[in-house]
């Protein structure tokens, strides 16, 4: 049994690493050409710098011991979110399930190998977010060797909690799911429901802090209270933090192992009884069909070509679970987080500190502020992957664009619409937040920034679509390959850096001039680049060069 589990886990983990292009195919060497390798490296460096700064601040206010509680609480929430997104997909809908079903594998072997797959992903997340920050904390707090051994133990044990609990819940929930007619919609709805529950819990916790806190100097204490509350909620996290803080190590370790033993026993027991049955039931239901006759009068209504084309674009984004999760879902999360952060900072911090509130209300908009808002907008635009995967998402169907009698330039324009619309939503949230925090910004100024942000959004979408047209990923077998193996994302980050540099230069050049001349300068620069890019697209389509790789 153990041999089978190890083998299945190895296959899953290897597939996973190869999917992310982190190891060279057929070798055990790291692939330094992978975009993900560099992204992970950048994230690790950023987290190290931020952690260092937080540790310094906490040290100044004598609250250093708060750090592990907050970090572990944060990582636990992140890992729970990640497990929610992964669990049902990996356990029930992964592509390999149907190939594995005919093999002589016991239900518990299949279940454990699937759980190990989720665990492997979570260890990756955990290493990125906690490994170096906890070492930095240990060094700052002058911890001994015992602490570092505890760190490894905590890192090894922590991800088991989200994986085992969420998998257990998924197994039980799926037992009562009678029939899944639309598996894409099911995945999207369950994920959204889980996420809403987590967000509601977070909002309630923050409200609780707001109710308790009257003095800003107590913020550190309140954050610890919030972290402690989260840690208490997640049953084994509190003893794990205590292990990290070198308190009653052996008792806490036994507590954690005891809880895990019970949870894992329950998981295997329940899994043994219902997992395979559920998988078979779902597979059978997926194949079963209820005949629903076409109503030609209502279902065959003609629509104008471009409306039909655009509707199809949105259909692809919203009706495919993988595309939705990778393109629209992160935007929803970003919007929720931005609104949440804005409310939190406004009510929780700014309104409570008179000096800070007076300072912000007295601030006038200058060129520096405009460039910061636009820079922030560009950073958010770069998180959206709609245009950069617009052609790749079509896969082999992409040739469809070329053989239909519809102008390629107009198709190009329509393909930009979803990303531009999403960008505008993000831009509006930034502008509304700016108005709330800095009431002196006039509506006219906000409209000017909106126009600039919209031009920047179109430019961003144009460029990313061109990148995808030039370097499309068309020969994929599973939709997820469009995102996981897409090295084109690097262009989005490079472009963001270029925009930030351009904005910094314009800010410096327009430091002493009137704000509206500054607006005009930014508009001319962006519009000029957009004009050149548009010319390039038209020319490329005319001489059959632009879509050359879409075959």
């Amino acid at each position, binding site marked *: 049994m153990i041999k089978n589990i190890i083998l299945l886990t190895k296959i899953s983990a290897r597939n996973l690493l190869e999917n992310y292009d982190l190891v060279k195919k057929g070798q055990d060497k790291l692939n330094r050409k992978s975009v993900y390798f560099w992204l992970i490296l950048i994230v690790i460096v950023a987290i190290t710098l931020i952690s260092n700064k937080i540790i310094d601040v906490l040290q100044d206010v004598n609250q250093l011991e708060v750090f592990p509680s907050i970090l572990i609480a944060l990582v636990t929430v992140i890992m729970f979110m990640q497990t929610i997104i992964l669990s049902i997909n990996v356990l029930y809908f992964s592509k390999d399930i149907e190939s594995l079903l005919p093999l002589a594998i016991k239900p518990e072997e299949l279940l454990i190998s699937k759980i190990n797959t989720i665990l492997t992903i979570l260890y990756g997340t955990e290493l990125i977010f906690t490994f170096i920050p906890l070492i930095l904390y240990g060094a700052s707090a002058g911890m001994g060797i015992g602490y570092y051994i505890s760190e490894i133990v905590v890192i090894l044990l922590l991800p088991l909690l989200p994986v085992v609990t969420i998998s257990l819940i998924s197994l039980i929930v799926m037992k009562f799911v009678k029939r899944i007619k639309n598996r894409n919609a099911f995945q999207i709805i369950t994920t959204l429901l889980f996420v809403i529950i987590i967000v509601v819990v977070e909002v309630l916790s923050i409200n609780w802090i707001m109710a308790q806190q009257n003095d800003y100097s107590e913020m550190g204490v309140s954050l610890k209270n919030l972290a402690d509350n989260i840690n208490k909620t997640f049953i084994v996290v509190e003893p794990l933090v205590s292990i990290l803080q070198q308190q009653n190590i052996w008792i806490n370790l036994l507590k954690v192992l005891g809880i895990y033993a019970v949870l894992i026993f329950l998981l295997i027991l329940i899994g043994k009884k219902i997992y395979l049955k559920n998988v078979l039931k779902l597979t059978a239901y997926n194949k079963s069909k209820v*005949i629903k006759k*076409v109503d030609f009068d209502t*279902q065959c209504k*003609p*629509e104008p*070509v471009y409306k039909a*084309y655009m509707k199809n674009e949105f259909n*692809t984004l919203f009706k495919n679970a993988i595309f939705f999760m990778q393109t629209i879902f992160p935007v929803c999360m970003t919007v929720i987080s931005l609104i949440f952060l804005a409310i939190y900072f406004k009510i929780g911090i700014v309104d409570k500190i008179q000096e800070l509130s007076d300072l912000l209300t007295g601030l006038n908009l200058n060129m520096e502020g405009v460039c910061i808002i636009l820079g922030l907008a560009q950073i958010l635009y770069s998180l959206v992957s709609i245009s950069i995967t617009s052609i790749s998402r079509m896969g*082999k169907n992409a040739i469809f664009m070329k053989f239909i*009698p519809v102008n390629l330039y107009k198709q190009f324009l329509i393909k930009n619409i979803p990303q531009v619309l999403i960008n505008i939503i993000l831009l509006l949230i930034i502008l509304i937040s700016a108005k709330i925090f800095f009431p002196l910004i006039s509506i006219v100024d906000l409209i000017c920034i909106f126009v600039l942000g919209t031009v920047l959004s179109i430019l961003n979408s144009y460029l990313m679509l061109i990148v995808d047209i030039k370097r499309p990923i068309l020969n994929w077998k599973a939709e997820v390959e469009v995102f996981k193996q897409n090295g084109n994302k690097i262009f989005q980050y490079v472009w963001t850096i270029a925009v930030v540099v351009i904005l910094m230069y314009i800010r410096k050049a327009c430091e002493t001039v009137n704000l509206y001349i500054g607006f005009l300068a930014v508009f001319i620069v962006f519009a000029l680049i957009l004009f050149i890019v548009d010319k390039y697209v038209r020319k490329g389509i005319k001489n059959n060069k632009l879509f050359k790789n879409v075959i």
Partner: protein
Amino acid sequence: MIEIKNVSKSYIRGQKVIDNINLEIKNGEILGFIGPNGAGKTTIIKMMTGILDIDEGDILIDGKSIKEQPYEAKKEIGLIPDSPDMFLNLKGIQYLNFMADIYRVSEEDRKKIIKDLSKTFEIEDALNEKIESYSHGMRQKIVIIGTLLHSPKNWILDEPMTGLDPKAIYDLKIMMREYAKKGNVVFFSTHILEVAENLCDRVVIINKGKIIFIGKIEELKQKMKENNSLEELFMEIISDD
């Protein structure tokens, strides 16, 4: 009518995958395009339909150049690509309606054609299902219906029989014959030599980017001076080349 005039194509400079091909397919004709893997069949089809650009020469679809008047030329084409995995997230009826919108087919015409052809191919009960739940053969059938919605004058099919059951192959052959009888061009590539032998007015054999035979099966047999099947003649002719 399709006219292929002195067409050449290279993917790598100096290595022609299509070498100076000339071909004329008349209205009312069924032309089978035969050749081993990598011979250049799909490349030619992709150039005829505007998916690939043409390095040298030109292709005229009912007198309209695919290079100079691509949109006008494409309106006269119905293409069945080699992979039928089109828009898997759409329901069959949504896909057909989308294709009808793209080719600006009237409500009456689309209703009639969808009803008739889905009945012929026995997929009317599956039209309200997502295409991803279809078998390979059903996907092929829905794509075939999609290409015929606008009644193109030139029907181009890349390996159309792949994955179809015997009845569907029979129905498709009948449909191709009837379509040609109405004065349209039917141009298809295939590996199934028996289909080409029974169905085509003329066959074109292509190998290594060059046409090595154009004509009727009888002419090929006369040329080879043997009373062999097309399969044997084909093997002989490509080995000679």
